[in-house]
């Protein structure tokens, strides 16, 4: 591989990471707003989370971003998973697309949560990730007994695609 092609590939991988991070963060904000969950901390920590997720997608360590809604009675539901599927090499004809219109229709069907519900964002990895400020070890809530509904591909970019699964 020539130095020029390496440089081009790195550039596009960065763009893929920026794009998919934007879509996942924007979707999380929209879902939380739709569910009337307080998003003050989401936008307070936005830059930190944005940087971390983009870095992990770029290095291809990120398996999925998980949004967990913690209800006052101790139930964790719904859970929304955003799995990332990487392509071994950037697809030359792949474009940066997001299905926001379908997402808006899908979002409107989400089951409401009681007042006082809070949320958590968890990332899972396929390989050990580079440490990022503000992020530490954590664990996921159990998904046992939850029914899974697949939205399908939410966004696509040359080096990876982002899907959405809804568990309730």
């Amino acid at each position: 591989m020539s130095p020029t092609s390496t440089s081009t590939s790195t550039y596009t991988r960065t763009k893929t990471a920026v794009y998919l991070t934007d879509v996942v963060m924007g979707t999380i904000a929209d879902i939380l707003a739709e569910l009337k969950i307080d998003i003050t901390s989401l936008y307070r920590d936005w830059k930190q989370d944005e940087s971390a997720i983009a870095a992990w997608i770029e290095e291809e360590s990120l398996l999925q971003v998980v949004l967990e809604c913690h209800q006052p009675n101790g139930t964790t539901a719904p859970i929304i998973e955003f799995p990332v599927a990487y392509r071994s090499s950037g697809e030359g004809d792949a474009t940066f697309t997001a299905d926001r219109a379908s997402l808006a229709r899908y979002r409107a069907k989400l089951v409401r949560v009681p007042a006082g519900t809070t949320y958590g964002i968890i990332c899972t990895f396929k390989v050990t990730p580079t440490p990022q400020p503000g992020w530490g070890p954590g664990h996921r809530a159990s998904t046992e007994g939850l029914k899974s509904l697949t939205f399908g591909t939410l966004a696509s970019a040359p080096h990876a695609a982002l899907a959405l699964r809804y568990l309730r």
Partner: protein
Amino acid sequence: MQRHRQVAAAPHRKASETWEAIEKLVTSTLERSPRITGKDVAAALKAASPVGIMLVAGGHLDKHPVVVVADPVYLTISTVSGDAALSLDEDLGPVPGGTTVTEWTVYLPTPDPVGDAVRSAITGAAHLSADEPPGESTTKAARLSEGSVLDLDALANRARESK
């Protein structure tokens, strides 16, 4: 004067960087006025930054622009996301007309489902509004009307002087 500017969002820029580009565009336009300090404009837009970033990332500004009403400037700013962002020919320099601005308000859009969050975040903030912006034609009509009155006065004076 109505102007529209498009700012390239993801994948060209992160949402936070896109909002910073919008902040700079508005600040550089308004600080040309001797009656407005860039520091004040930047501070107001920084206060809107959390929800501004959220509006960018959700793709809301692609369809619902930020509107800056600062007579004679009427500036709408939208974002471009996806493939189109990579080929967008941006013009992020100061918008003409800023030198005579005295009053200014930045209107943020309130699309579903984040409208309530936007309203809540900027409540009470100076120079920010989540209301529907006044139409550009309304402000232009007001200026034209004012101009007509001034012209009539001048004509009346001239008529008196010639007698």
